[in-house]
């Protein structure tokens, strides 16, 4: 049976396709996303309060390496698909970074299946947000240097410096709230969080459902763009996630994670960022075609992962862990 939150997503896509005037107020969208990030962080932080932090070092290191490697691995493949160098780097960055909502849907599916999972997995999400972006930006800058060497620049401001970018990513909303929630959960512990659990923990899935309704509307709006870009976004959007999921699952298995943990890491590797990455890449690599990356990440990969990918990755984790 398909998870109820996914049905909300499909309702959003349907509303968009039939041209409904349904639109969630922007302020509500912002509120829901802040809530989800804080709640995911808090839940992970509670688990951190129960175990020694040093034990997590291998997981953190593996997440950084995994996130950083994805754009490097995808780059030659995307170039082979005839994407311009900066676009290949930018698309890679989107896939190297992660989608928090995909993670939330996978967590809900794993909980519903009754599989054991690491409750501090939110830490992986926070850690995996930036490395892929850094790798993508490095690839893009290298490509630009080569292009600049062969022809004069067509004009426009060069990409933003690393300092401003680091500030943008590390103190941007998603990493700040995830790490903030983790820290608050870890410091406060179960007893400290108990009084706010009725707001931040219990209604989580309902809020996720509402947020997915809005994301369905957004993703549905990108479907027309899929037609514009043609086969390449479909190949990237559907073909790449399962391959990345294999890499994520293998990493999880090597780390000795639980079945749910392997599935979550596979999902994170397979997911593509459509919030942090577009903003960061827009500023760092303005030459890249933003619509292409967003259409692949949000118009194709996100729906694919939510509806088909996550059950697939859970089955993969079960097969590996057996």
């Amino acid at each position: 049976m398909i998870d109820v939150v996914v049905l909300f997503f499909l309702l959003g896509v349907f509303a968009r396709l039939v041209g409904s005037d349904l639109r969630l107020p922007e302020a509500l969208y912002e509120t829901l996303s802040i809530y989800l990030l804080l709640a995911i962080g808090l839940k992970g932080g509670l688990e951190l309060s129960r175990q020694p932090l040093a034990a997590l070092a291998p997981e953190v290191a593996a997440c950084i390496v995994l996130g950083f490697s994805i754009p490097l691995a995808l780059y030659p493949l995307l170039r082979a698909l005839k994407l311009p160098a900066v676009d290949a780097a930018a698309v890679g960055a989107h896939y190297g970074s992660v989608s928090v909502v995909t993670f939330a849907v996978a967590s809900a599916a794993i909980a519903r299946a009754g599989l054991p999972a690491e409750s501090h997995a939110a830490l992986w999400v926070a850690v995996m947000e930036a490395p892929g972006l850094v790798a993508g930006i490095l690839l893009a800058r290298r490509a630009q240097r080569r292009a600049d060497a062969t022809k004069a620049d067509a004009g426009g401001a060069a990409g933003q410096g690393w300092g401003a970018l680091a500030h943008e990513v590390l103190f941007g909303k998603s990493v700040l709230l995830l790490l903030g929630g983790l820290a608050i959960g870890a410091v406060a512990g179960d007893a400290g969080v108990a009084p706010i659990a009725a707001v931040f923990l219990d209604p989580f899935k309902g809020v996720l459902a509402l947020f997915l309704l809005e994301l369905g509307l957004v993703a549905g709006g990108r479907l027309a763009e899929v037609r514009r870009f043609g086969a390449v976004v479909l190949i990237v959007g559907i073909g790449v996630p399962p391959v990345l999921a294999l890499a994520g699952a293998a990493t999880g298995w090597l780390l000795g994670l639980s079945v749910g943990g392997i599935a979550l890491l596979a999902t994170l590797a397979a997911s593509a960022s459509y919030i942090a990455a577009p903003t960061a890449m827009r500023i760092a690599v303005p030459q890249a075609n933003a619509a292409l990356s967003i259409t692949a990440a949000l118009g194709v990969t996100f729906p694919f992962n939510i509806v088909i990918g996550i059950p697939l990755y859970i089955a993969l984790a079960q097969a590996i862990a057996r």
Partner: protein
Amino acid sequence: MRGKHRKTQLVIVAEAAIESRLVALARRMGAQRWTITDIRAAGLDEVREGRWEADRTIELRLIADPEVADAIAEQVLTDYAPHFGVAMHFSEVSVLRPERF
């Protein structure tokens, strides 16, 4: 009404991603006062509905001396127009306390 002074209003419609950089540029080039609003924008080639973070559009409205407004627009054209969605227009306005602009 007495004491009206001519100034130029420059309106910049742009991707929200470059909002802070546009403000820094305007401030650096001598603008003293501006307003920013979130808007939804569309053209024949693109629709920016502002439904989520990467799709937001802003309107930066500033009033300044004509030469300051021209210089800001020129710099925006050079730095941002090649790769970012940017539209600009000018209008003549009358203000009451010219030293504030």
